[in-house]
Every structure is written in structure tokens, then in C-alpha cells.
């Protein structure tokens, strides 16, 4: 295997300068060229017109997180760029291109000792006033990466096609002018190869979740917008009607989750998406879904917390509420996708789990996955992974069998009882959030109360999660245990260590609850040191693991809050430390 090469660049500019738009065009071009790529965005606090940065990383191998440092930074201007300083990992080998006319180089760039190369947008434009610096910058990058005119025109078409041929034409012309300026990069540039291995997609994690929902069978969504989950809802709003479903905009999250429950009670698989504050408003009704055994899926795209927190940035701090946020004994599955493609798979699996087990299921995504756009190899969509043998179809009652009266909550080996849907003659029954007996009648008797608690617990314990409870990679006497968006930087950190001869296996847990304790303990066999990695302040995942599993005697935890995602170097350092500690 050849060592993956990757290249990182950022385009920044103030409101209206078009940094993001240029970034998207480049992403499309790169996708077209056959490379893999990932793009994240960073904004200042303004609603619109504030400073913005498009961070692009491209590679000849799949890549799902930003790199340690920037190879290239192009400033369309420097206005208020200070607020993005944290997002831009400039160091002394970063090449910085900027037009001195747009302002002085910020102190933090000077301080980093970056290799500043001045250019002049107006000169490059050759006097053409229609020529925008952001498109010129695309041309500069095209030159650096060796992206040909055809590729760039196709990308411009994708980006601006809807605005008419003239716009595409102007953009393409600017891009070609930009090519004149090709800074020298003494840095390995990934090879552009037009023969891609297979079909490629350009997709965000949120889009992937939405697609996974539809492929899983979701045909109803009730929505209340919230950053960074809104794109899931917006995508579904436009697509569900085309496949026989619909989306209702609700007045709040209390309404959206209840609408979903109503639709699902009617037999229509339902999902909603939200983020921390919205999830907090849904927990009462999620408890009702547990008690009444009505399937529903909630995709919670985490952002910085607590409270309103940092809505536009990643953090993995909703694990506690996702697993434990319901009152009473209300166990339910929680799945965390650990990559952008996995947003599709995990969300589909969540629908499968919900429908098969008649339970609410939470998908714990985060802003770092949801709002990152990547160029990826097309995942398998026809069949897709499911947990173990689960069929993903709801077990329905069809009128036969039950002897006397229909028992909605009949006890059974796997804890799942056939559901009679409205419309089925003879299956009429009333479900309730009150403690109930097998027929669903309210009761206060210990025996009935306990029977239903046992039955619902059994559902979660008796399905076989197969291989899908975690992604396990590598080997060694050390293990890194993580979940969600921390997985990509972890993987990259471990690859760097492997290259140095330091072996460490990675266990990225996908099924956060119920934990596959036996599976995890087996995956840890032969491991004597572990690092638990998560992007939150309290170490919520670590506590959760401790509560349920035996962890290696020497277990340390690397947990810190967002809003900056982990960088591979942090992982490398932590594992190195772990090696030394246990040597001592």
C-alpha cells in the first residue's frame, strides 16, 4: 500500500467575497478528477455577510477529517479574519497568498512564520471588472493541483449552471486567468487521476442521514429547524413527497416528535432530526414511545453545549442525554455514525432497529459529520448493513392466531409482539403511557409492571448486533476506544503511529446503547492499555463504558470540549504518552 498523500487548503474572505462558493466549486472539480476530498466551513458570528472560510482537504485515499495543518491559505481579504484564527492551522510551511491591497497580513499569520506570497487580484484579472477574486483563486488552486480546464468548467457548470450560461462563462474565464499564478509548493500533491475506481458521490453527513432514512423506509417526517440538523429536514422536505411520503413543519419539537409518533402509530415509519436543545424537548415523548412501543427515529446532530452553546461547531456532549435523558426505566438504542458515509448506514440501521424492535432509536451524529461535505466512494445502497438478522420490517398483526382478545403487549421470547395497525379489523386497542398489562390496559400491579419492563429490556438484549456494533481496526496490546466524529482523526493518528511501528487497535463503538459488553470485552482481549477518546468535557463516553464493561487496568481518557475537532497529532501524543506510562 502506498502512503496516502493529502493536501489542505483554505479560502477565506469577508461577506460577499465568495470563499465558500469557491470552495464548493473546487470540491466539485476535485471530485470530478477522481480524488477524494472533504470540505468544512467556518463562519464568524454574523448571520450573513460575516467572515467565512472554506477548508478543503484532498487525498488519493478516502478522507473524512481535516489535516493537522494547512498547506495553502488564500485570503480574498483579511477583514475580521482574526475570528477564524483557531480554525486555520497555519504554520511555517503554510503558503499564504494574499493581495497586499486588501489589508495587512494579520499578526497571528506573521507570528506563525508562514511563507507569504503576495499577489494582485486586479493584475490577475487583467482589468476585467467582472472577474471576481474568488474565481481567480480557484484558478490558482487548479494550477497548483493540475486540474485541467475541462474539469474546472464542468465544476463551474455544476456550481452556477442554475444561474445561466453567462455566469458559468464568466467564472470559467476567471478561473483560467487565475492559472497564471501558480505558487511553488514544495509539498507532495496527490495525483489527479481521471480514472476513478468507481462511482463517486459528493455528499454531506446530513444529506447522507436523510438518504439513509428514506432508504430505510421512512415516509413521514415532522420538522422544527435547528442548527446543525436543519439540512436533514430540508432534504427530506424536498424528497419525501416524491416517494409517497411527506414532511410537516411543526410548531416546536414537542409537536414534531408527537407527530412522528402519531404517524408511526398509523404504520408509517417516521423520523425527525434535531440538536441538543430540541432533543431536550423530546425526551418526555420518547419515554412514551418506549412505553407504548411505537417505533420512531430521532437524528440528533450534536453541537457545542450546554444550553444554546455553540450551534455551528462540533462537540460530542449529548451522549448523556441521548442514553439517560428519559425519566423512568426507558432503555432504547442509541447509534453513533462514525463517518460521513456511516451517517447513511447508521440512520438506515436506526430505522431497521426501530421498526424491528418497536422502539424509539436515537442517532447521535454531530456538526462535524453533518455539515462536512465529502467526495466519497459510492456506498452499497441496495442491501446495506443491518444489525444481525433484523429484517427492518415491523411485525404486524394480521388478525389470526391470538386466540381470544388481541394482546398488543403479549409477552414473547424476543420481546416483540405483533402490532395491529389502525384499519385492521379486530385489532382495535388503546395504547397508553401508563403502566399496562399485556392487553394494554392500565394497571398498578407489580407483576404486570415488571413483565412489561422485562419484555422491553429483552427486546434490546436479545437482538444480535452482529458485527455492526463497532468498527474495529488494527491490532496490538493497546486500544483506542472512541465513537462518532472522533473516529476519523483517531484513525489518522493511528496510521501515523503505525508508520512508526507503534501498533494500536481502534474500536469505534457505533451501538452506544445497549453496549455490546461481551463484544467489547472480546475486542479488548490481549489489550493491557486503553485510551478513551471523545470530544466533551466530562468524559461521558468513558463513564458510560465504565458503568457497563471491564476496561483494561491501565485506561486513560482524552476528553476535551469542542468547538475544535480533534487533530490527529493530539491522538498521536496521547498514545505515545500511554506507551511511555505503561513502560514506566
Amino acid at each position, binding site marked *: 500500500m502506498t502512503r496516502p498523500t493529502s493536501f489542505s487548503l483554505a479560502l477565506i474572505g469577508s461577506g460577499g467575497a465568495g470563499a465558500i462558493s469557491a470552495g464548493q466549486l473546487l470540491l466539485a472539480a476535485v*471530485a*470530478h478528477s477522481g480524488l477524494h476530498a472533504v470540505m468544512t466551513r467556518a463562519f464568524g458570528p454574523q448571520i450573513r455577510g460575516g467572515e467565512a472560510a472554506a477548508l478543503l482537504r484532498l487525498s488519493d485515499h478516502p478522507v473524512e477529517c481535516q489535516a493537522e495543518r494547512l498547506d495553502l491559505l488564500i485570503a480574498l481579504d483579511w477583514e475580521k479574519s482574526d475570528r477564524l484564527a483557531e480554525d486555520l492551522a497555519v504554520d511555517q510551511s503554510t503558503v499564504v497568498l494574499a493581495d497586499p491591497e486588501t489589508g495587512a497580513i494579520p499578526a497571528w499569520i506573521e507570528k506563525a512564520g508562514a511563507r507569504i506570497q503576495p499577489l494582485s487580484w486586479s493584475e490577475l484579472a487583467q482589468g476585467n471588472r467582472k472577474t471576481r477574486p474568488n474565481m481567480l483563486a480557484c484558478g490558482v488552486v487548479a494550477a497548483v493541483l493540475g486540474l485541467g480546464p475541462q474539469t474546472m468548467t464542468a465544476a463551474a457548470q455544476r456550481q452556477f449552471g442554475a444561474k445561466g450560461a453567462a455566469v458559468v462563462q464568466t467564472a470559467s474565464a476567471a478561473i483560467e486567468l487565475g492559472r497564471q499564478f501558480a505558487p511553488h509548493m514544495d509539498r507532495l500533491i496527490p495525483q489527479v487521476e481521471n480514472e476513478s475506481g468507481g*462511482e*463517486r*458521490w*459528493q*455528499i454531506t453527513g446530513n444529506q447522507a442521514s436523510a*438518504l439513509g432514512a*428514506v*432508504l430505510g423506509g421512512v*415516509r*413521514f417526517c*415532522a420538522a422544527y429547524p435547528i442548527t446543525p440538523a436543519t439540512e436533514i429536514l430540508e432534504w427530506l422536505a424536498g*424528497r*419525501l*413527497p*416524491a*416517494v*409517497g411520503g*411527506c*414532511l*410537516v413543519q*411543526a*410548531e*416546536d419539537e*414537542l*409537536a414534531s416528535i*408527537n*407527530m*412522528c*409518533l*402519531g*404517524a*408511526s*402509530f*398509523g404504520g*408509517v415509519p*417516521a423520523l425527525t432530526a434535531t440538536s441538543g436543545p430540541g432533543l431536550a424537548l423530546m425526551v*418526555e415523548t420518547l*419515554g*412514551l414511545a418506549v412505553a*407504548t412501543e411505537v417505533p420512531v427515529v430521532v437524528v440528533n446532530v450534536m453541537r457545542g453545549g450546554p444550553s444554546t452553546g455553540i450551534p455551528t461547531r462540533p462537540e460530542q456532549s449529548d451522549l448523556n442525554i441521548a442514553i439517560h435523558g428519559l425519566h423512568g426505566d426507558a432503555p432504547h438504542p442509541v447509534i453513533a455514525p462514525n463517518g460521513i458515509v456511516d451517517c447513511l448506514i447508521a440512520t438506515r440501521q436506526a430505522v431497521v432497529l426501530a421498526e424491528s424492535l418497536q422502539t424509539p432509536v436515537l442517532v447521535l451524529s454531530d456538526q462535524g459529520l453533518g455539515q462536512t461535505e465529502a*467526495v466519497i466512494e459510492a456506498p452499497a*445502497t*441496495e442491501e446495506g448493513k443491518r444489525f444481525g438478522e433484523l429484517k427492518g420490517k415491523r411485525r404486524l398483526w394480521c388478525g389470526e392466531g391470538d386466540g381470544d382478545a388481541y394482546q398488543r403487549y403479549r409477552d414473547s421470547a424476543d420481546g416483540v409482539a405483533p402490532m*395491529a395497525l*389502525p*384499519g*385492521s*379489523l*379486530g*385489532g*382495535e*386497542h*388503546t*395504547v*397508553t*403511557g*401508563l403502566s399496562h398489562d399485556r392487553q394494554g*390496559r392500565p394497571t398498578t400491579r407489580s407483576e404486570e409492571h415488571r413483565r412489561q419492563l422485562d419484555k422491553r429490556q429483552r427486546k434490546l438484549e436479545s437482538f444480535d448486533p452482529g458485527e455492526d456494533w463497532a468498527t474495529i481496526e488494527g491490532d496490538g496490546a493497546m486500544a483506542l476506544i472512541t465513537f462518532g466524529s472522533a473516529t476519523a482523526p483517531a484513525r489518522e493518528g493511528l496510521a501515523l503511529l503505525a508508520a512508526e511501528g507503534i501498533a494500536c487497535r481502534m474500536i469505534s463503538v457505533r451501538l452506544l446503547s445497549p453496549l455490546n459488553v461481551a463484544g467489547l470485552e472480546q475486542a479488548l482481549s490481549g489489550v493491557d492499555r486503553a485510551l478513551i477518546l471523545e470530544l466533551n468535557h466530562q468524559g461521558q463516553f468513558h463513564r458510560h463504558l465504565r458503568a457497563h464493561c471491564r476496561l483494561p487496568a491501565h485506561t486513560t481518557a482524552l476528553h476535551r470540549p469542542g468547538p475544535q475537532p480533534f487533530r490527529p497529532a493530539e491522538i498521536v501524543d496521547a498514545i505515545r504518552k500511554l506507551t511511555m506510562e505503561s513502560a514506566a
Partner: protein
Amino acid sequence: MSANAPITMSVLSARDYKSDYKPVWCPGCGDFGVLNALTKALAALKLAPEQVALIAGIGCSSRIAAYTRVYGFHGVHGRVLPLATGLAVARPDLTVLAAGGDGDGFSIGGNHFIHACRRNANLTYLVMDNAVYGMTKGQASPTTECDWTGSELTPEGPHQAPFKPLEIALAAGAPFIARAFANDPNGLARLICEAIEFPGFAMIQILSPCITYRPEQMGYKKRVHEDFQPTDRLDQAWQALVADDGFTTGLLWRAERPAYRPHAADGDPASLINSFRVE
């Protein structure tokens, strides 16, 4: 439309729409009247029980779901309307009914009430209004008189302007608005039939005495008067409400407005992938 749903074998009587659970209601509670009227209405409309769903919240009144032999959902406090809306939108073939109390619908559930009026999904909402929280043992509800001192929680009275369900419904855009009295099961049953047949959101405020915590409501019988004249002119409706003493019954407002019903095509989900493909 729901009224055209398939009819089971023989003609059913009101009693056939009742389940065999014994209500937990106090003897004499107005809610018995509502149960009677509702089952009469279902029988009169010849609705197949399995085509009907009755969604309820939490409260004495909300227990009604389990006492009918149709599909029922006894949800959480205050969320009966979104629950019913989800079902009605996802399953337009069903007759969807929502029921609950004044606390459930106007206190904790007040927001959903307004938005259900605006949204106009095809469902019927029966509010069993006894101007008290029965289930939690007698606190003031939004419809309680501002000087009622019967609860330890508000020993000097709630001191707030009572919530006016019909005014709010009209202001919020509900297309079908009525008031009825629980102990007039025939009149109420007629109104429920009309509400069910109405293609959109139909709400009926039902004065339903709580004999335990508001025994004085036994006097409602003497106070109600069926004087509403149905109209679809806003000025007339507001006039009627300005003159209303809270005991006028009948259909107040019936307006033509297309019911909320998202349309759906029958495409292939796999085609949705195309937009992500990079050519």
C-alpha cells in the same frame, strides 16, 4: 373521506363502540355523557371501528380513549393534537378524533391548539371542559373563573382572564367551531357527526361538569342555551362571541378552507441517489 370507510358486517349500535373497561370516572361525571354522545355519533355515521382512531392526552377526560372500541392512543399531557395530526396526515384514510380536557388542551397544550387551528388537518377535536384539573384533584384550569378560590394552589383565585376557547380558535383560523353540553347527548352527538364529516379541523368545546371538584357545575343544565347561528362571516362570528355568556351552544363557525394534506407521488427511492453522483 372517512365517512366512506368500509362498514363491518352488521349495523353497529352505540354500545358496540364502547370497550368493556369500566371508566375510572366519578359517578355523575359529565364525561360519561361525552362517551355516550361520541359512540352514538360513530354508530350514526356507521363508521367501521377499525377505521377510527381516538387520540387523547392526560386527565380524567383523556381516559376516554380506552373506553371506546376503536384504535386509541392515550399519549402524554398536552400533546394530543400533534399526535393526532401526525396520524391524520400519514393516514388520510382513517377517521381521526382527538379528545382531552381543558387543562390538557388549553394549558399545557395551548400552543398545539392554536397551530392545529391554523394547520387545518382533517380531524375532530373534542375538549371536555370542566374548568378544572380533575385528575390532579382540583386545581384551576385556564377556563376557570378568575375568582374561583376552590383550590389550595390558588387560594385567592387564579386572578387571570379565563381562556376563551372559541375566541382563540376563531382568531387562530379554525374552520369549524362549536360548543356543546355533555349532558345533552343527542345534541352533542349531532354536532360530533357534523364535525367528523367536516373535511378539516373541527373543534367542539364540550361543557362537561366535574361533579367532584366543581359540584356547582351541576347547574350548567339551567344555564346552557342553544343560540349560536352558524356563520362564515367573521364580523358576525365576532359579534356572537362578544355577546356570548360562555353558555351559548351550537355551531358557531363553519368556513370553507382546504384541509391540510400534503400530496405524495410514487417515485423510486433509489432515484434520490442521483443528485449525489459525481459524473
